[in-house]
């Protein structure tokens, strides 16, 4: 009985050691240098899954971490939830793309120093043969109307995300309430929703970033694009320390400064997915025309 007890304790300790190791593992960026002023606290950023999935943050954040000297913890959830995390003070800064919700957020006094960072656009992907003929639509609302008329399968994110809200706004503009067997509410992230649409051979409103990342896996292709009408602007907002005293306000403001700085904006401009540029910087637009 003694020997097996010893082994059990050993296993437990091993697991604990691994746990502690795992807990202390920092993001791939170099560990923050423990400068004389002492290590800076973690900056917690809530953003949307589509932003995280695009891969932009992996380019944008490491230089910031090195410069500022603190790791950034990214929590990727839907826009609604990201703003909720900000309201609750569970994160220090939010990066989202839903102007209406952002304005409400600011009006509540939950955030400070809202800055426009960049924009990309939404597009409607669909089956190759385009049964609803939306390629010839006059605008997003018309495209949606055609889909509804044809009762072609349409997959919605239906998760209160920025994409979903944009979709709802377009339905509203078309004066339609989508309902029926053709309207499928996936309730998932953008990537998963695209896969569902692909499977059902239907239409889907998606942001360009996720589409580019998933392009190779999909049979669907862009059927309707309107970069002006379907513009998707991103903002970054620091959580108000007056509401939550112990948020990392300085870190949040440093991150806001970084992403809106010429250096940060250049990284955004240069970012490519599958050979195509994705985001267009708003804070410090490039002098030359944006790559398309």
């Amino acid at each position: 009985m003694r020997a097996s007890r010893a082994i059990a304790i050993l296993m437990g300790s091993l697991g604990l050691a691994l746990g502690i190791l795992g807990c202390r593992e920092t993001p791939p960026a170099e560990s923050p240098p423990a400068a004389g002023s002492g290590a800076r606290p973690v900056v917690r950023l809530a953003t949307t899954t589509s932003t995280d999935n695009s891969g932009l943050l992996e380019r944008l954040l490491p230089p910031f971490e090195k410069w500022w000297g603190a790791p950034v913890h990214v929590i990727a959830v839907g826009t609604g939830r990201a703003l909720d995390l900000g309201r609750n003070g569970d994160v220090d800064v939010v990066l989202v793309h839903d102007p209406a919700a952002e304005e409400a957020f600011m009006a509540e006094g939950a955030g400070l120093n809202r800055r426009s960072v960049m924009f990309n656009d939404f597009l409607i992907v669909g089956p190759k043969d385009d049964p609803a003929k939306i390629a010839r639509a006059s605008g997003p609302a018309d495209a949606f109307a055609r889909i509804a008329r044809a009762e072609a399968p349409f997959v919605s994110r239906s998760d209160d995300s920025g994409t979903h809200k944009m979709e709802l706004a377009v339905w509203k503009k078309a004066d339609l309430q989508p309902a029926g067997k053709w309207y499928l509410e996936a309730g998932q992230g953008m990537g998963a929703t695209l896969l569902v649409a692909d499977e059902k051979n239907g239409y889907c409103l998606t942001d360009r970033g996720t589409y580019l990342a998933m392009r190779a896996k999909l049979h669907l292709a862009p059927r309707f694009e309107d970069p002006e009408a379907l513009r998707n602007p991103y903002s970054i907002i620091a959580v108000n320390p007056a509401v939550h005293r112990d948020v990392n306000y300085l870190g949040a403001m440093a991150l806001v400064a970084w992403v809106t700085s010429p250096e940060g904006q250049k990284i955004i401009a240069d970012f490519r997915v599958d050979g195509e540029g994705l985001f267009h910087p708003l804070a410090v637009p490039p002098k030359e025309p944006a790559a398309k």
Partner: protein
Amino acid sequence: MRWTLEQLAEALRLLGSLDRQVLSALALSLGVATLSTVLATAAGVPIGIAVGLGRFRGKRILTTVLHALLALPTVLIGLVLYTALSSRGLLGSWRLLYTPAAIVVGQFVLALPLVTALALAAAEGVDPRVRLTALTLGAGRWRVARTILAEGRGAFLAAVVAGFGRVFGEVGISMMLGGNIRGYTRTVTTAIALETAKGDVPLGIALGLVLMAVALAVNLLFLHLRRRATP
């Protein structure tokens, strides 16, 4: 069919290249699962023995409630604990949210009813003569409990194994309380969820295979322990 095989082949190929992030996720998964199982065992086994051996009025009801708790969905546990651990919540000042410690707390809550229920069954399954013999030989309450534990060690070990298995493969709690932060709270299971949501099926499968391989290794270890415990 062909597509499935292609995905599997890709998964195996990915397994070959041991990514640093995968190792980090694995270490985290193992660490939090072990820690939460140890805590759940420390709490659940004594309670299970005490209730299992006891003869009191509400015993049946208590046991039924315990079994009902086994059906708790992980997302529900995650959600309830989120409201407690959130900055605005009851335990907000502890600043546990989106740290590995929060995952441990959540998984502890998940494993506790399971370990307790199985420990209870194990205690009841021990031959009644054990308790009587221990008592007549002069054992006090604690010694009787320790003796029950020793005599039923196979079943008790199974309780611990079941608890570990439950938390090792869960995703709801890790996601809600950990936040799936790359390199910090990204467990193998949340990574699988992420990759599949992004449509990267081969990577999801590869991670799943890694998870199962480790689970198999852990269970082999338990088997070895069990063999040594019962000559």
